[in-house]
């Protein structure tokens, strides 16, 4: 697999009053060009932190270590802040939940859209550049499926629905043709039909121009069929990763299994409630269990679980568990 984003054993430590806490613990992620990869984790699992680490929104107090944090042929950890800003600014973009808060409430949509078009790509004198900008902005709106461009451009962000605001965020994000788009729970609090629209749009953009997408979601119900691969993260540790089909059909990891049965049994469960099949609650930062962090809640936990399990590879799937739910007969 030729990964354009290659993360090996990435750890992030935060300094707290009770000493350092590892919020991301030896995390692995490989992303191929044009691939949609879904990262599933509950709130506080460190998934947003991972996105920040990739994009370089780094607090200087964090301690970041990794065997590899490569983007294409750049070793991101070896670049200084300015170089990193150039690389990520050129190649990456991010969209978020609550998209309207990422738009200036006092500025018309059109103006913000025009502003996001990189000046370097325009040519000619002032007036020509202005016209150019306008046509490019219109084209961006067309690409995200907005037909009535004149109307939308004249609106203020508070006059947009969340779905429309997210489409505009996407339009702004793809203005400089990024190679990686990180979508952090892009459809939270949206109606199912809008949700579907946004997902279809993202899938189309990915297929159409080979843009890789790292989709971050809360649970397995939001995993779209176009997502080729999927990773599950719990308390900063990678639980299981592999092709979406295989992981969902036949999970090796108890956590995947629990998430799956949750998404099947109760589709509309409110966020942050207790998992129906895992007892206990997500541990707080100060009380991270040693070894496998799922340990205290895992029905299969045994003594060996106080040591962190290494990643085991079974065909395409990798998982971190001492006692997987099944063993692959051909390989074991």
């Amino acid at each position, binding site marked *: 697999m030729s990964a354009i984003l290659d993360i090996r054993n990435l750890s992030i430590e935060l300094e707290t009053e009770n000493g350092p806490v590892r919020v991301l613990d030896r995390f692995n992620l490989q992303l191929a060009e044009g691939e949609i990869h879904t990262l599933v984790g509950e709130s506080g699992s460190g998934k947003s932190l991972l996105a920040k680490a990739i994009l370089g929104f780094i607090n200087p107090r964090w301690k970041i270590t990794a065997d590899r944090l490569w983007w294409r042929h750049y070793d991101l950890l070896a670049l200084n802040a300015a170089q990193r800003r150039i690389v990520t600014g050129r190649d990456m*973009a991010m969209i978020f939940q609550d998209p309207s808060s990422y738009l*200036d409430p006092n500025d018309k949509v059109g103006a913000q859209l025009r502003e996001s078009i990189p000046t370097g790509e325009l040519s000619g004198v002032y007036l020509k550049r202005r016209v150019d900008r306008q046509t490019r902005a219109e084209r961006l709106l067309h690409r995200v499926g907005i037909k009535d461009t004149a109307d939308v451009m004249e609106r203020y962000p508070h006059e947009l629905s969340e779905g429309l605001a997210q489409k505009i965020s996407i339009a702004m994000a793809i203005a400089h043709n990024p190679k990686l788009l990180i979508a952090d729970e892009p459809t939270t609090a949206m109606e199912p039909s809008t949700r579907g629209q946004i997902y279809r749009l993202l899938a189309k953009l990915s297929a159409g121009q080979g843009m890789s997408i790292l989709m971050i979601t809360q649970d397995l119900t939001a995993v779209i069929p176009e997502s080729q691969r999927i990773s599950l993260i719990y308390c900063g540790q990678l639980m299981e990763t592999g092709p979406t089909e295989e992981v969902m059909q036949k999970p090796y990891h108890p956590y995947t299994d629990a998430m799956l049965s949750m998404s099947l049994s109760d589709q509309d469960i409110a966020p942050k409630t207790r998992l129906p099949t895992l007892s206990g609650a997500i541990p707080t930062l100060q009380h991270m269990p040693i070894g496998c962090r799922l340990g205290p809640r895992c029905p299969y936990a045994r003594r060996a679980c106080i040591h962190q399990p290494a990643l085991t590879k079974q065909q395409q799937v990798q998982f971190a568990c001492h006692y997987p739910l099944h063993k692959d007969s051909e390989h074991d």
Partner: protein
Amino acid sequence: MIRYTLRRLILLFVTLWLLTLFLFALNYFFPGDALTNMTGVRANDALAYQRLVSERSFDSSLFSQYLAFLGHFISGDWGQSLSTQRDVFTDLLPLLGATLELSVLAMALAMAIGAPLGLYAAGQQRGSMDRVVMGLSLSAYSIPVFWLAQLFILFFAVKLGWTPISGQVNPLFDIDVQSGSILLDILLSNSPYKGAALADAINHLWLPVIVLAIMPATMLIRITRNSMLEVLQQNYIRSARARGLSETRILLRHALPNAMQPVVRQLGLMFSILMSNIIVTEVIFNWPGVGSWLVKSIYERDYPVMQGGLFAIAALILLVNVAVELFHAWRYPQVRKELYAER
């Protein structure tokens, strides 16, 4: 926006109407004869008094008395002063001009000082200059204006002798009162010494203007700083940075307009505070404005003048507040949604 404007205007008129009710009632609560309190004509001037009794419906019910009062009030017949026998309404206009001049200049000065200092403090957040600016503004905010005014007079006028102690302009210049605003009047006059008069007027002006500007300026510093800091935390600023916009563009185009929004919203409140300070300041500086006029009328129990002064100041505060609110809603369309959830 039209709906919002209408609502504001209706509210304005209702408040003004309630104010007339209050003024009308005052005439009966003040000691003495209600008709005299209202018109400034004493009962011993029998001829005029008798005419007023019928004109003001004092031979009829309380309700028709109010209607008559309202009619006269709207047509600008606010009675005459008990002490000078001069018409209240004609006296009021130039006084209002003088007060407006003082308040507009003070407000402008406060903005010119307060907003940039607030932005500067925000830029130096938690640095030593931030602490200095915020400390100074808090101490200046806590100084009562009557004390500050006297301190300034003592220091700048008496001790240093830089400026006259009181008044608008040296009476030797013999400037006709037209608008009441001294600077305007000098420009409108045909005095041969315009330049000298202007310099003298400014020499009289700057001290009261500074005294008045200090309170709103300190408020502006704090509001501007805090709102700027809050805006800089917002997602749209961070995402603008992530998209690689230049820092100048982010500040001028996105941060500043948003940061000024709460500042604009507070301008009405600041003006109200300024007006209460202006009354005291006018008395201390012997400034011929509505404030000192009102205070003098209270000493002299000159009820018609008192009513006129009260109404003028209250109406001015109301008008400015409504104007600020309308401007705010017009400039910041997203607040209209917050107000009425309209689309």
